[in-house]
């Protein structure tokens, strides 16, 4: 059954990229709808609302980061698959869960916050600095999850 180890490992990489990427796509989508509304009224605010729209996009990048590290760890990149035991494979899968799950949910929450922040920019463009901060508060938890996933994946001996 030891062939299953590598499958679990790859599943881990997939979970990290899949969930966080989905979350970011939803989050950026929510913020994008608000941003489009603002730009129809006032095209000059394009740059500002675009920046805020991008904020929920980082979770997808964090997922990509963990996915990439996992892939190179289990040897899918650059050939030569590592010989993983089932236990190690499951360890890697578990290590990938934080960024996957937190990435998914935090990106959606951040998307909603970003949509609200775009509302601030629409009414008070000079409060851009503060508007940007609210979505950034949500992101903290994705960063913490990224950190644990990263430390765990790089800590597992293969």
């Amino acid at each position: 059954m030891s062939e299953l180890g590598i499958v679990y490992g790859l599943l881990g990489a997939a979970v990290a990229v899949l969930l966080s990427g989905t979350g970011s796509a939803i989050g950026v989508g929510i913020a994008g709808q608000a941003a489009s509304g603002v730009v129809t009224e006032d095209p000059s605010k394009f740059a500002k609302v675009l920046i805020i729209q991008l904020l929920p996009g980082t979770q997808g990048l964090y997922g990509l980061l963990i996915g990439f590290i996992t892939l190179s760890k289990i040897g899918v990149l650059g050939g030569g698959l590592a010989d993983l035991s089932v236990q190690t494979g499951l360890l890697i899968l578990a290590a990938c869960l934080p960024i996957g799950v937190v990435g998914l949910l935090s990106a959606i929450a951040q998307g909603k916050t970003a949509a609200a922040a775009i509302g601030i920019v629409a009414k008070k463009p000079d409060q851009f600095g503060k508007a940007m901060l609210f979505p950034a508060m949500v992101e903290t938890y994705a960063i913490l999850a990224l950190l644990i996933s990263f430390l765990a994946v790089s800590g597992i001996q293969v």
Partner: protein
Amino acid sequence: MAVLKMQRITICALKKNRKAILEKLQSLGVLEVNHILDEDEDFRKMDTAERKTGFEKAAAAVDQALDILEQYAPEKKSMFSALEGKKLISADEGMKVQDERRDLLRIARQIYDLDREHAEQQAAAGRLTNSIESLTPWLGLDVPLKTTETERSVFFPGVMPGGTTAGRIYEILEEKAPDTAGADVHIVSQDQSTVYLGVVCLKEDAGAVEEALRSEGFARPAQVWDETPEAEKADLEAEAAYMRKQAAETEEKIRALAKRREELQIVADYYRVRADKYEVLGELPQSERAFVISGYIPAAVADKVAEKLMSKYDCMVDVEELKEDEEPPVILKNNPFSANMEGVVESYGLPVKGEIDPTTIMSFFYVFFFGMMLSDAAYGVIVAVVCGILVWKFPRMSAGMRKSLKLFFWCGLSTIVWGVLFGGYFGNIVDIVTEKFTGTKITPPALWFIPLNEPMKLLLYSLLFGVIHLFTGLAIKGYLCIKDRKYMDFFCDVVLWFMLLIGLILMLLPSELFASIAQMEIVLPGWLNTLAKGLAVIGAAGIVLMSGRGNKNPALRLALGAYDLYNITGWLSDVLSYSRLLALGLATGVIASVINQMGSMLPNNVIGIIFFILIFIVGHSMNLAINLLGAYVHTNRLQFVEFFGKFYEGGGRPFHPFRENTKYAEIKEETLS
């Protein structure tokens, strides 16, 4: 690192100099008008609302004309037009335009009228085209639709529901008007929903025939013309073509006026400035011969302004210190490096009275953290060079924009330093390229260490930088307490917390937990261990006893103290928040490596190399953009939430001087010297 000191300046002068003095003050732009005098019998305010509105309307009219010009003859703008700033014109040019202002206002009105004319002409052309369309089904008819009767017979055109055939119509007539002598029905054309037909019948039958047909959905056409459809169509087409030509000519006329655009812009600004002036004029208390103007002025220039005014006009200028309870507007003043971060502080909130300007201290941390989060030498070079060139090439860009670009320039330099320390150059591009093309992998050495290999080490350093940052914030709070002579607050809110926190850190260092994280053991001498415990206990006890000191009830006081001690979790989360320094740095590096890896998978031939370069350029531009955004947002967050949270509230009022607030062009300003 300071808030500029403000003074109150009060100028009392003769009315004959009113215009000159006001214009002088407006062009200097150093005074925020703020009156403390009330109206009384001698000093009354003048009602300028009407004239002010007049100027505002004129400015709006010219602005509207400029918008119209922009539609017909868009001004050529370069990609960087946003950076170019307002045009600079000489005082002579400004004067010349001022003299022509009535003429220019007339031109603005002309542009507006021409635009309306153009819209009407286009609408007329559109209406004619519609008429032609409704005429089209009748083209087969060789008599005018309006034809009604001959000596014995009568003709009327009409429409019936689609699918009605001539045979069906004759049936209807037979059925519903059996007494008539019949009618001749001519179907002109038909489409899906409508049949177009002409009916001829005897005069005396007309009523009965039409009635019969009407019961089956017959209706007269909505529009009838005097001539035959053929001839009418030719007429309408000619007319539409004429209208279109007229519209094109009008358009040409408007375009011809575009050469006056610059003058129009200047005159719009002129009216705006006049409107501002009349607003101020309306606030001035004036007697029969004299007037008073008063407001805030930066202390550094107050005397110079006073001297200048007194030497030139008959006036009395009085500069005095502010009263205790006044909340003056705020201008920040910092060294040339830190001044670039003023925008960041401003976006959080300017210091209120009694607070210090945190810009200088913050600026060093800002650049330090920003570089650490981006941490790629090549990205740093790009950011620094691009910002440097823009600042150098566009000397007239707005002050706020210049500060932001300079801020990023410094952050770029810091990024270079961190990149070299961590060995990041476009991620791992050197490794990839050397391995792909020469076969041997060369890794540029990191001056310090490679974060990807030793993440725990960098995490600990990140938290250490965080602790330094937070302690600096707490120390500033202590400084403020001492400055305000609140020694009790200083001891309870600052010293006790320092004791508790330092004690706890010293207790943590030799523990097993720390050893397993840092992979090194720290052994502190025994007396230090005892001291640490002592500090922590005294600090904690002190906080529990003293935090609720404002409360008389001892039980409540202790409860409040215990609650304040709970803030220790706040400190923990604040410190952990600095782990983003590591996470964002890793994100930049790893995603850059992903891009490089993708490129290197391509075959090693010409096409492969071309695509490699393409992937390289597109991928790294995106990575740079998104990480630049991330570094900016999270550096701001660390300053605003963690650092400012310790000592700074903000909420001050920015300085809004009475000045020439223009939109398009600036007239060369007089300087004070």
